[in-house]
């Protein structure tokens, strides 16, 4: 290692380097600590936790808390576990992410390649959506959902997230397509490609990096959302985050911390997975959007 690094511009002594690594290691440990606590406590019996052994490794290993959190824990009134709510979340997040990403891409395409009067003003207004706090839209949104007859339904929640997500996805795609050569679009027009053909055949195939960024961003936000879920979904239709809250907050009986830990990890798992799978592209996509040429 040190031999290979002899020629780099920054020469550091061995001692300095050891120090740096030590420092990094320390920080890594510090940041990993919560994950450690959650993992360890989710695989030990409740008695070990209440006995005060928060930091210790389990004496008896068990996956019982995981199973319980997943399928039998008391959530609200029924002992269903988090399972049905997990699927609630999946079936809400997937269409919401897909629709808001596709609409964002279309918006970006129109705003950069089919310029029209006042398009920058329109874009400015859409950007505004990125900065509006959730709380402000709650009541108007409830009114709109009621008007559309979607109050309390999964489709209603999808609509809410799509509307809220379009601002960001449009921002991402518009900035990405702004540096996409317009001559390509013109060439395709001369070649006889239609509006959607140009989008589908020319722009989308080159949009991989920004699509990944957008999908990760939307997925994390929508999956982790609590406020909209708690406000617009009812009872059985609640998403994972709300169910987790109900699990932890349930006031009857003893607090099963090990089950809570397992449930929390279950709730965080999909976003974690998305980062691990697509994180590499995430950074690449962010760079592609910001650095021109």
């Amino acid at each position, binding site marked *: 290692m040190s031999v290979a690094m002899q020629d780099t511009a920054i020469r550091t002594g061995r001692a300095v380097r050891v120090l740096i690594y030590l420092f990094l290691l320390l920080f890594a440990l510090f940041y990993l600590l919560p994950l450690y606590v959650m993992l360890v406590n989710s695989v030990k019996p409740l008695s070990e936790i209440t006995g005060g052994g928060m930091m210790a490794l389990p004496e008896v290993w068990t996956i019982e808390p995981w199973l319980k959190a997943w399928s039998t824990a008391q959530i609200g009134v029924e002992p269903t576990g988090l399972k049905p709510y997990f699927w609630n979340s999946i079936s809400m997040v997937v269409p919401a992410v897909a629709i808001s990403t596709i609409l964002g891409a279309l918006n970006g395409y129109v705003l950069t390649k089919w310029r029209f009067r006042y398009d920058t003003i329109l874009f400015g207004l859409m950007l505004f959506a990125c900065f509006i706090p959730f709380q402000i839209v709650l009541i108007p949104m409830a009114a709109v959902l009621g008007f559309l007859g979607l109050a309390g339904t999964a489709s209603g929640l999808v609509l809410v997230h799509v509307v809220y997500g379009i601002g960001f996805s449009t921002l991402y795609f518009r900035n990405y397509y702004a540096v996409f*050569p317009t*001559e*390509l679009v*013109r*060439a*395709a*027009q*001369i*070649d*006889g*490609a239609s509006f959607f*053909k140009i989008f589908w*055949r*020319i722009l989308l*195939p*080159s949009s991989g990096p920004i699509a990944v960024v957008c999908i990760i961003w939307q997925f994390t936000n929508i999956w982790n959302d609590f406020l909209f879920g708690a406000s617009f979904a009812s009872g059985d239709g609640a998403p994972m985050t709300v169910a987790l809250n109900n699990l932890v907050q349930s006031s009857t009986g003893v607090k099963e911390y090990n089950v809570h830990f397992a449930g929390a990890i279950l709730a965080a798992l999909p976003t974690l997975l998305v980062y691990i799978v697509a994180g590499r592209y995430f950074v690449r996509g962010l760079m592609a959007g910001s650095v021109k040429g």
Partner: protein
Amino acid sequence: MGFLDIDNTTKSYGAVEVLHKVDISVEEGKFLVLVGPSGCGKSTLLNMIAGLEDITSGEIRIKDVVMNGVHPSKRNIAMVFQSYALYPNMTVGQNITFGLEMHGTPKAEREKAMHDVAKLLQIEQLLDRKPGALSGGQRQRVAMGRALVRNPDVFLFDEPLSNLDAKLRVDMRTEIKKLHQNLGTTIVYVTHDQIEAMTLSTRIAVMNGGYVQQLGTPQEIYDTPANIFVATFMGSPAMNVVPATVRLANGRPVAEVALHDGSLAELPFSQDNLAAWEGRDILLGIRPETITDEDAADRKSSNIAHLTNRIVVTEPAGSDTFVSMTLGGKDVIARMRSDAEVRPGADFTFAVNMEKAVAFDPASKNRIVP
């Protein structure tokens, strides 16, 4: 009525008019070059022919069909862009056939057309590559292939060679010329390089500030420029423009010019009608290659004038030596043979081919027409 007619066409962006009443007509199989300095509106005009920009007023017709408002893909034109605009996600082959595919040509026919064009342009071995893996010259060929395969009525080129290095540019220039001679398709070609314009075209439109300054054959543009802008824009080094006064000598008009020391020399005109300008100031236009030494003077010319003046600087450039002197208070360049015996600071007798000289009205800057 030509094959391509640009009839009284104007273009405005909001309140700003960038093209003013452009009138150009091209016959079938001709090679029209739009040339002019940056920002003069060449690309805008080309894009209007392609249908990528609206026409503010006037009419553009191809084969007598009005093209105003017709979609670019329905004009039967093909365009080669400055940046080549190859689709980065498609292979060379797909790039070439994309237009045919969009027009619903059957696959077998597309394949055949693709191979024919690839053979013509010698890019057969590149068909499966992505544009990212091609050199500049190869991309240029692919871009031309994509245009050729459509078999269009009119080819539009927007500065297709400006991204290439000097040598490749000359090669591709020759290739485009060959292609035009073999296929005989009508071409409109935009460039700001006057040498490209001269070598490629059968007709040149010199543009400046949104106006067509002159439309004509390369020879007409070169020998009888309509005004000082055209005269100095076309040709390298540029035409010398010298202040002079018209006098009469033996009843024939001559140009009286000041030499380096202020003494006057007389250069007889070939155009008799300039006698009408007696006593008035003009601007005399002399191309560098028409000022030579005695031995190299054009033998076919009926009007060689002689002029003894001091040499200021000599610049050997291989095949030629450029000699500069002061005439009428301006720097004037002469293009001499490389073996001409010229020394800076020495007096030298130049032979000026006055048959080729032109005179401009200093007020209007237009050429005084014989």
